[in-house]
Structure formats: C-alpha cells, structure tokens
C-alpha cells in the first residue's frame, strides 16, 4: 500500500538562514503520526511546509503523486491544517466559521457535515450565533478542529492542539483526535506536550534543530532516553 504522505529531504529557509535541514519521513493511511520536540525545533515550519504556507525545497508526495502547488489546492485535495494560532474568523459567527470550513464542498454536503459536527460538538451548536472571537480557549480549539473537519479531510495536520489549554480540555481534544483516526482520518500531530502526544500516536519523530533525531513506534519512543533528556533535562 502506498504512503498517504511522503516527505523527502524537505528544506526551508527564512531569508538566508535554513531552519529545516532536509527532513524525510512517510506516513501511512489511518495512522496518527506525531512530531515532538522543543520550541524552535522546526515542527511548525514542517507542517507549514507540508501545507504549502511556507515555500520549501525537496519532494512532497501526497497519495502517491506530487502534492498540488497552493494551500487552497491542497485543501481541495483533502489536506487540512489546524494551525497553532487556530486562524479563526474572529468577528464572524461560529456558524459562519463552520460554513466557510466547507467552502469547497457542495451545499448538500456542507449541510450534512454541519449537522454531523454539531452532534459531535454540542457546545458549538449551542454557540452557533456567537462570534468566534468571544469563545474560550478550549472552545476555539474545538471550533478550529470542527471547521477543519467541515472540509472532510483525508489528512489532518494538527499544530499544537493542546497549546494554552487546561489538562482536562487537552484530554478531551486528544480524545476526539483518537476518534477521528477510528473514522478513517489520518493525522499528523505536532506537539510539545510529548507525553500526551505519544499516548495517542502510532508513530513518532523527535525533532531537534531542524532535523529528525529519532523515529520509531510511539510506545518505544516514550521510553527513549533521548526523548526523556530533551524534555526532562539532565540537570547537569
């Protein structure tokens, strides 16, 4: 079976400084793959490159073929990024945000998916007339996720979904992520909260200074000394 997403020697430079130094890995369908690492390791840059938000060199294959050129075309091809900053339409209602999530879908599909998602996220249904900017942090993350699901993605790119959220809400969000995998959505998850990410992921990659340092099944990565050191510090 071919890979869903394959990155080969991805390099990204900001100005003249290269921040990703040739990242390569592939992910299979129906899996949760997580990229963990410290701040500034290049995790967000990697997702942005995969989505086409920042220009990169190297090869990105999606469903076995070259990935479309623009962000919008990648969305049309079934990729969707939930950014670290959520990127909601703050001065528009929850429902408008949701509808726009299904911008590329037909009217019927949009209505169906919207009804589905309101069942899955009753909080959003309650607040459908409220402006997105007035939601709490957890609700915003829910909305960002739900808006992404409106496009019926096959590959969901999640950037730090736990950022700034209380542990209980983090658990809830990650629970939903696990459910999505059951529903057949493949997920590339970038997290600083390594423990939580490794708990739900199938495979993991540890990034440091713009390179992949360690890769392996999530369960064994959790016990890897390099991972532990990177997070807990050696206290030398």
């Amino acid at each position, binding site marked *: 079976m071919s890979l869903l997403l394959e990155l080969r020697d991805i390099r990204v430079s900001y100005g003249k400084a290269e921040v990703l130094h040739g990242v390569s890995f592939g992910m299979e369908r129906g899996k949760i793959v997580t990229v963990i690492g410290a701040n500034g390791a290049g995790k967000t840059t990697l997702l942005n490159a995969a*989505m086409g*938000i920042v220009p990169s060199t190297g090869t990105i294959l999606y469903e076995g073929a070259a990935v479309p*050129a*623009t*962000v*919008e075309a990648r*969305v*049309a091809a079934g990729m*969707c*990024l939930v*950014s670290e900053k959520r*990127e*909601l*339409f*703050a*001065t*528009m209602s929850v429902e*408008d945000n949701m*509808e*726009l*999530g*299904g*911008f*590329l879908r037909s009217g019927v599909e949009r209505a169906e998916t919207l009804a589905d998602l309101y069942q899955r996220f009753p909080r959003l249904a309650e607040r459908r007339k409220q402006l997105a900017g007035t939601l709490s942090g957890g609700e915003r993350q829910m909305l960002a996720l739900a*808006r*992404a699901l*409106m*496009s019926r993605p096959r590959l969901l790119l999640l950037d730090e979904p736990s950022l700034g959220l209380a542990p209980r809400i983090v658990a809830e969000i990650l629970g939903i992520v696990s459910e999505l995998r059951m529903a057949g959505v493949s997920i590339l998850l970038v997290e600083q909260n390594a423990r939580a990410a490794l708990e739900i992921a199938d495979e993991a990659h540890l990034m440091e200074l713009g390179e992949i340092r360690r890769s392996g099944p999530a369960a064994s990565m959790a016990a890897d000394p390099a991972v532990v050191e990177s997070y807990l510090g050696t206290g030398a």
Partner: protein
Amino acid sequence: MDSTILAFLVQDGLTNGAIYALLGLALVLVFAVTRVIFIPQGEFVAYGALTLALLDTGRMPGTALLLLCFGLAAFLLDLWSMRHRPRIGEFSRSVLVNLVLPVAIYGATWILAPMQLNAAVKALLTMAIVAPMGLYVYRIAYRPLADASVLVLLITSVGVHLAMMGLGLVFFGAEGLRARPLSGGSFMLGFLPIPAQALWIYGCTIAAMVGLYVFFEKTLLGKALRATAVNRLGARLVGVRTQLTGGTAFILAATIGAVSGVLIAPITTIYYDTGFLIGLKGFVAAIIGGLASFPVTALAALGVGLVEAFASFFASNFKEIIVFTLIIPVLIWRSLTTDHHEED
C-alpha cells in the same frame, strides 16, 4: 441665505454625497479584502460616464476596445505564468474569461451602439463594458504583488491610476462629455423640485448598500470575502483562493464605479481626468471611516457632499481646498487615538 437656497444646497450635497458614498464603500471593500488602496477607483467612474455619453450619441465607446486590450494583456500574463506547468483547464478558463468574454461584449456593443436604445439598456451595457475591467486590472497589476506591503500596493495603485487616466485620454480625448439623464423631468417636494436623476442616484445608492449587505451576510462567497478580510491565512486554510476573493472585490469595485459614472454623467460634464477627483472625495469619506467601517464611510460621504455644496456656494474658489483639508482633522483625531505600536 433663504430656505430655498438652503434646500437646494442640501439636495445638491446629498446627491453628490450619495455618489461619494458608493465610491467610499467600494474603496473600503477593496482595502478590506485585498489591502489595496484603490486610487484608480475614480477612473472607472470616468470610464462609465464617458461610455454612457458616447452610447447616447450612438457611437462606439473607446472603452469597448480598451476592454479587449485589457483582456488580451491578462491572457498573455496567464500564458506567461503557465509556461512551466501548462494545464488545459486553466488555459481554457483563461481563454474564456480574458478573450471570449471581452470579444462578446465588444460584439454586443458594436451591434447595439448604433440603435437608439432605451436608457436602461445603455446603462446596463455600460456596466457590462466597465465591470470586467476590474478583474483584468487585478490580474495585471495587483495579483503578482499579492504578498507586497500596503505601501507597495499603494504605490502600485498610483501607477495604475496614471496608466488608466492616460488611456482614458487616448480613448476619449481631452473633451468633456455629458450624458442624457436616465429619465427626464422632476418632482416637486413642497417648493423644491427634485430632478428624477437625483432620485435615481438615491435609489441606486440604497440598492447598492442593501445588495452589498445581503451579499456579505447571506451568501457563501460574500462570507468568504469577509473571511479573507478578517484572516487571510485562515481563509486560505479553508480553501478560499485569494485570487477568487481579490477578483470578486475588484469586479464589485469596477461595477460600483461604472454605476457611479452612469449616475453622475447626466448631472455634470465628465472629462477623462474628472474621475480622479470624484474618487478622491470617496477616499476622504473612506479615510474618515478608517478604511474599515461601511456605515461611517457612507455617513462621512454625505458629509463630504454637503460640505462641498456649501463651500461652492460660499467660497467657490476654495471648494477643493476645503474638501481635501477635511481629512486633516480626521487624521489628527486618529493619530491621537491610535496606538502606534505596530510593526509593518
């Protein structure tokens, strides 16, 4: 000053103010969606007015040919940008939009122009000629600069303004023209006669505002435009193409410009460069609205119209000076209330 003069001045001010309001709305719209400060808005007014005036005389308006040129230029740019990755779909779309459409409009004009048409048909034909220019101008001048700063886009706008004004001179000549009113006659409001054209202007302005409101609040495309204005990256992440929203905004702006031209052509003589001054008065209103608020812009536009009407009565030589210095107090007020901590 007696009450008759007062009433006349108010009516005159409101009539012009309504036009400025239309233009101001277009400017706010384009800025919100594309960050372009659309100086050439006024050129569309001149194009619209002069096109209508020529159709009145049964002649072929130069804008029809200009539309062909714009479409051809846009097509060539599309070809150039497709040179590495030629695609059938994109190519045929480009042929359709950039070549077939302007040729069709040109053909229709060629057939219709010599006929003695009804005023409404002429107005619609004028809009059909001018509106697509918005799309081509966006494609030619602004789309390649989508990532540029507001400042660079503004300088670009000034370049587009110069070019379009010069082209207006080539295609229409230096002579001024005036069109026939959409419908003649006038109504008496008490002692004050209101020309039918003024009613057209009020009606069209209100209709445009209602239309824009419905477009932005009720349609998905309208919401996509708002979304782009609120959060550009967010809009791209849900699959809204910047080109789609940008093109739509410019077509709307050109249409509004053409409508304004059609409305104003019967009440004042329009030269190839008149549009610029009219457009700038819309700008004064848009700046008062902070380039952001539609209602404030519309109200400010009425204010600009009134100030202008009274200034031309009391100090006609200083009319333009007074109107353009109106923005100084606004800028002072903004400068005192804005937090200047912003990075470009």
